[in-house]
């Protein structure tokens, strides 16, 4: 079977920064308190949902930011124990059992904040695990991040943040398939990638 190159495409023209994708991820992955794998950043003023005044015009847009699942991932290179690795579909995975909590991956990753660390025992406001049944348990002393919902990909489902988007701004699929929605969107519209000059070759594209 041909190798997949999984990618996510986010349409920033349609995105309204509603945080539905962030909540979907939070619940699906049973994230501990204060841990967010997908964050909505306001591109504008210094506070959430505030614009910037530029050349007499107000501007505001949103960037949803999670692990970029880089083809040329710096985190994979620096992990001393192989806890961070790329699977056969190009998804950067994190094995909590191998992770020794050295956080070199967090230093190496230029996408500040997409990797989160459990300094203490994970705490939850709900007294039982929520979200997907097959989500690995969170562990104190390990790094965690977006997995493109690998547990859902196993079942032929898309990541939890994709279908929920009220703006229909998020697409996911295989770039090696020219008929996939992601391939189509990248052909039809302009796109950019974050910190492209660093050579990380992210798997996330933002349509403009």
């Amino acid at each position, binding site marked *: 079977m041909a190798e997949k190159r999984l990618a996510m495409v986010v349409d920033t*023209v349609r995105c*309204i920064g509603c945080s539905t994708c962030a909540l979907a991820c939070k619940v699906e992955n049973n994230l501990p308190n204060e841990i967010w794998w997908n964050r909505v950043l306001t591109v504008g003023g210094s506070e959430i949902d505030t614009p910037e005044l530029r050349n007499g015009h107000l501007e505001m847009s949103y960037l949803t930011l999670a692990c970029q699942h880089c083809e040329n991932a710096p985190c994979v290179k620096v992990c001393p124990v192989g806890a961070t690795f790329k699977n056969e579909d190009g998804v950067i995975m994190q094995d909590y059992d191998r992770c020794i909590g050295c956080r070199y991956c967090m230093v190496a990753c230029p996408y500040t904040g997409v990797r989160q660390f459990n300094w203490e025992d994970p705490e939850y406001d709900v007294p039982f695990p929520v979200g997907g049944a097959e989500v690995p348990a969170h562990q*104190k002393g390990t790094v965690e991040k977006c997995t493109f919902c*690998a547990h859902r990909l196993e079942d032929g489902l898309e990541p939890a943040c994709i279908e929920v988007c009220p703006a229909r701004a998020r697409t996911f699929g295989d770039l090696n398939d020219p008929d996939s929605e992601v391939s189509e969107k990248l052909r039809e519209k*302009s796109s*950019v990638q974050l910190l492209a000059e660093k050579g990380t070759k992210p798997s996330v594209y933002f349509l403009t």
Partner: protein
Amino acid sequence: MQTIDLPEAPVVLADNLPSLLRLLDGAEAGAVIVDVFGFGQPANEVLDAIRASAPSCPIISFTSSVERDYSELLVRAGSNAVVDIERAPEQLMARIQEALRGRELKAQGSRFLRSSNRPSIDKEAHNMGSKSPSSVGSTGLTRRTFLKASAAGGAGLAVVAAVPGTPTKVLHALEASGAIQTSGEELFGVVCSPNCWMGCRLNAHVRDGKLVKTSMNPMPEAQYNRVCLRGLSHVQRVYDPDRFKYPMKRVGPRGGGEWERISWNEAISTIASEIARIQGKYGKTAFAFAPMSGNYGVINGGLAGAIQRFAGIVEGTVVGGAIDQAMPLGMAQVLGNVLNGGQAFGLGNEAADMQYSRMVTVWGSNITESQVHNWHFISDAMENNGAKLVVIDPTFTATAAKADIWIRPRAGSDPALALSVIHTIIEEELWDLDFVMNHTVGPFLVSSETGLFVRENPEDPTSRYLVWDQSTGGAVPFDEAVDPALLGEYDVAGVMVSPAMQLLADEAAKFTPEEGGVNNTDVPPDQVREYARLYATQKPAFIYPGFGIDRYTNGHLTGRGLATMAALTGNVGVSGASPAGAMGGGALMALLDPANVMGWLFPAGTFYGSMNYLLLYDALIKGEVEMYTPADPLNGLAGTTTSEPQMVPYPIKGAFLNTSNFVSNFPNQNKIEQELFSEENLEFVAVAEIRPTDTTAYADMILPITHWFENDDIVGGIHPFLLRNDKALEAPFEAKPDLEIFRLLAEEMGFPEYFDKTAQEYAEGIVEELANNLGEGGAAAVQQYRDTGAVRLFPYPFYSFADKNFYTSSGRCEFYAEWETLNHPATSPATVLTVPMGGNPLPHFEPPYEAWPDNPLFEKYPLVNYQEHSKWRIHSQWFQVPWLRELDPEPVVKLSPEDAAQRGIENGDYAEVFNDRGQATFKVIVSEAILAGMCNTPKGWQRYQFKEGGYQELTNDHKHPINMNCAFFDTLVDVRKA
């Protein structure tokens, strides 16, 4: 080297690749456009070379062929966009704009990522020495070491020898081998039912009897599929540790916070005896049933729910209306009362129709936060139809950020702005002549003496309307005229008359964009004219009004203005054009008219009295209200019994509330707590609620109710489907659905036969009744409901007035009317009353009652306070959900930089917002989005969440004699550092 000037940026041309690369080395380019096959080198080498010189510059590649394979190749090789050279005229500018926008996005993103506080890394550096990597986990035992041990010992537990990255594969294999069991997950079809009206169909995922998540459950039509951040967070609402478990009664004074647990038996018998006592002492209508909008499940909810059914049997009073009623009232004035005098919410098109529009005006709504699921239809229209989006709002909201044109009027000036637009349409003759002549009262002659239309037979008010025929120079019946006049003044039998259009033109002339317009709205005249021309000519054009404009006392006049704009331009009754928003064809609309569900609502043939929520203030405090009495309680169009409102004794001494957070969501909170809910004024109040709120704090009795997923129901929203909600979870402790509470009360009070069916039996009856009343087969609808859990009440696509029959006395759009719609005593069942026109029958301007610079109070309180409906809550629901509080932790006040600086307040400070009615303390966000002179305190926080006070202390309960509607934004305040 050649330079061309584009509106976006100067363009420098390079002749060959080396000179291009030199250019890029030397200076920063916004974008590179390259004929990538024109250099005699492989395209990917060209792209590599460009990337090496300018790593983050967007590249637009030209191809000379439309073959998809080349586009694909070029994107993979590093192009950000590909343009077919033959289609460059259409595509290139858009691609350049996108590239520049993309560059901005990347730059901002990079800036953020580089400068972002990296607390974990700092903490990292600090702890590097003190923490040893081997001490992870509380016991020092990792899962791996445990597994090794148990495998050796043959423990037979759930052993997962984790192959990195694929624990689930191994888990599946173990499951298949029977070595382990995982509990199954059951899915239930439920509906999220709050007052966003989006009616999202969801799956409740249940494991071991517990809700573990919700997900989107497909609607019958994929374009209506929906879920939002709030709908995804239900787990934390179901398992809210503060949920009420048992009925409770107050001990000590009301509002004192002391409670005692009681049994349901005691609760029911107390309520029943209080109803009997109060009705016996003060009259049947003295006991009020006061639902609101907290639950749009039809059975358990507050709109045509079990509470109204019960109220009609005991002939109490149902309190309603007074919120969201001004703007629709004005629209109904022009387009006609629909659904037997029902609100005008349903006078637009169904939401999905917006995707076919070419010009969408969002006026007074922040839909990307408050009605999220209507956004994608607009986005589709912009992408696929080249539709333009105009947003009209004093605040630069997230919706405004998407607009092609953002118009920023002064708070409360919207009727004047609408008149400026109307003036432009008339002055520049941008009207749709055919529509105006045939479907509006434009040509109908009006007598300057009586203010009424001139009829063929002056004695007979049903005889034909007269127009001035320019071809004959005389007044003739409208259907005999060859060339009716729209303007001018004429003499008919010695009386001066004018076509209604002339009167509209005269009124609008007071608000030319250049004078009356800008003087009142602060909107630049050029912008008004540009917008008016766009609205009138880029058809079909859709008006999407929000309730932002409804929250000033002149909201009904804005409604009249908007409906008039649509009538003048013929943007009515066709796909992509709506005069009145995107709620047409909504299942909810059908339920707003009691006549559609008489069997469910009035099974005993007896009825409840109706009272408007603002009149309730007087009823509780004074025991008398000034109100009209409808001639026919079930038909508002039948008029009133008197020509002026009368002072009527109307004590309210007892109340039962459900689906309501009255004390938090109605204006003038101090007055509510101290006067309305004083033990002397209100002798008994019971509240059915799920967790503590500002309202339960003032109850005598609290009844614990179920979450929506813990009972059966049928839910309608402003999409076209009625949806079945299946009970997914057991009710915790002693919580009960509202239907069950009324069943117990009915048994106690001797009429159990009216509440002896299940929720779904009643639901099916309602489906049948509704479908029959709306013309679709009732039995078929019930079968569809049973089979699929969904019924579409109106066929797709629904747009109001497709047949151009307006529900006015003339059958035409009446921007000039002989009668006026009013909103009291209530909004249901006599939803709107009609009285002979007493005031100005045209769209006109009156300033807001409080929030206008002319008000002397302005000297003391110079800021207009409004309470945005943000994405973190729906009104006062979701205020306690911890996941959402992580992102939006506490009450804030948003101020403009000017107002903050003037008061020595900085971003992050705490500030007191105050006026003569009250005060509250908030965290400050300084935002360029806020117009100087306004301050935004987002809605929904409860008093216990404030350091001091509460935001609803600030608002006023003024009663406007026509719209009788709470004007929450019509509030003047000042702010000082706390």
